[in-house]
């Protein structure tokens, strides 16, 4: 327990100060060393050597929700650091978050964001609004700017089902971010990471507003295939090892991760179509 060695046994003041509902803000008082962006880094740009990089994630607005899909590769320079990293996670029961960039910082950021949202919900008794969650994520990125400029950059992507939306068909919303904490709501689709250039080009030609969730899932896996086709840092469906993209949806029923069997079926059919027509 963080109460330390205070012989009175009293809970330290920062636990009981009623000021904040934010876990990050609480950490900055109780355990600042646990926050990314608060650690001293050696001067210069040195991160490339040490750390794994996570690559491509795409997200698509569908009819009644959003779909987010990420490939499974992490690279360190010209080597593959991981074949089965997971870059897409549920942020809370109605929203999804993905990351690209320095894997270590990205994973820590997602963990912190998940606790942040749950913490707010427990303290206040209500969930944050979808915009509130996106803004919170932007602030957390902003706090990492120093490290980002020294090479430990991470960029998230956020999407979810807006419980406050008047029209359930338009309740799926997505946001993109830049390393300075800029926040941009996107319409339709977006992608992050080294392969996103190719993935977004594929989505631009194939995306139609009002897509069903199932069609958006297929489209997402196709876009990742196109990214892997042209970007060495993005992994395609690995049929030999049975490693497939992580695909998650957020709809009125909440977030859901597709099972490996479901993604395997879709990924195999995408590969089979490409056998006949390489360009899709």
């Amino acid at each position, binding site marked *: *327990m963080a109460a330390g060695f205070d012989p009175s046994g009293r809970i330290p003041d920062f636990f009981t100060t009623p000021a904040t509902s934010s876990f990050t803000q609480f950490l900055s008082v109780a355990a600042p060393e646990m926050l990314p962006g608060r650690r001293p880094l050696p001067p210069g740009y040195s991160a490339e050597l040490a750390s794994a990089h996570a690559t491509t994630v795409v997200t698509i607005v569908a009819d009644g929700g959003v779909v987010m899909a990420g490939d499974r590769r992490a690279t360190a320079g010209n080597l593959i650091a991981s074949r089965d990293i997971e870059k897409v996670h549920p942020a809370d029961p109605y929203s999804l978050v993905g990351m690209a960039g320095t894997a270590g910082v990205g994973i820590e950021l997602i963990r912190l964001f998940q606790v942040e949202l749950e913490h707010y919900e427990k303290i206040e008794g209500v969930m944050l609004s979808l915009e509130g969650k996106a803004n919170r994520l932007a602030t957390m990125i902003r706090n990492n700017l120093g490290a980002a400029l020294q090479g430990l950059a991470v960029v998230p992507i956020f999407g979810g089902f807006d419980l406050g939306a008047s029209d359930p068909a338009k309740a799926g919303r997505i946001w993109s971010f830049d390393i300075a904490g800029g926040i941009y709501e996107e319409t339709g689709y977006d992608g992050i990471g080294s392969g996103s250039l190719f993935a977004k080009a594929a989505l631009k030609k194939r995306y139609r507003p009002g897509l069903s969730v199932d069609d958006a899932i297929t489209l997402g896996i196709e876009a990742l295939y196109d990214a892997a086709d042209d970007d060495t840092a993005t992994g395609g469906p690995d049929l030999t090892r049975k490693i497939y993209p992580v695909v998650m949806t957020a709809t009125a029923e909440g977030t859901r991760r597709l099972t490996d069997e479901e993604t395997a079926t879709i990924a195999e059919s995408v590969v089979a179509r490409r056998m006949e027509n390489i360009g899709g």
Partner: protein
Amino acid sequence: MAMQFYASPEQIMRDRSEYARKGIARGRSAVALTYEGGVLFVAENLTSLRKVSEIYDRIGFAAVGRYNEFENLRRAGVRMADLNGYSYDRRDVTGRAIANAYAHALGAIFTEQMKAYEVEICVAEVGATPDSDELYRITYDGSVQDEPGSMAMGGQSEAISTVLKEAHSSDMSLADAVKLAVKALGSVGGEGGAARTIGADHLEVAVLDRRRKGRTFRRVTGAALTALLEPGSTATEPASDEESAAPAPPEDKPSSSAGSADLEGDAKD
């Protein structure tokens, strides 16, 4: 000239105890009890300010007494649980640690401060079976007791507790448990000592659902609560819409995530 009077330490502590006890007895009561499917909290509550809430995945909190004081403690508990879960792993947050922290805090406040906190707290952790459920009672002076099965706090808690203990068994259904809790709460405070009927709108009901993965805390409100209070109802699960979204038991939660297991698990087929 001001006169200095001597008061013995025993006298000071007795006075503080009496003050705190009176404050707690003035309020309305809350009960916690185990049932076959988890741990049930029922509080008599006319306001929208909560007496029962979630601390962590399998840990719940109920309190009676002064709202601002126990609300402060509740927030501290949530912060402590989230900090520990974030630093280590979600499984490393235990009800006993939270109960200990509350006992320390209340004990320190009782001995060091002019005014004792007028609160009584229940920390409950739901286990895999009713036998492994844990209920802790933490009182205003920092003493902590393990209460197997059921407990009552606030108001005329001893009379309520007697009614509870007479009929409680850990294999009762949710509907039976809710009816017993409401009967116990209503057994005191009526005209001339008669029993009262407490309506659904004056109750705050929540469960820690044993069968769920991840966050197990659920409030039971509205139609689901009214249905449980109907005579003859046998529902064992809170009949809420959320039930349909209940996640399947997850395989292994990815170690890179801090989300609760109900979020991270593969979807049910």
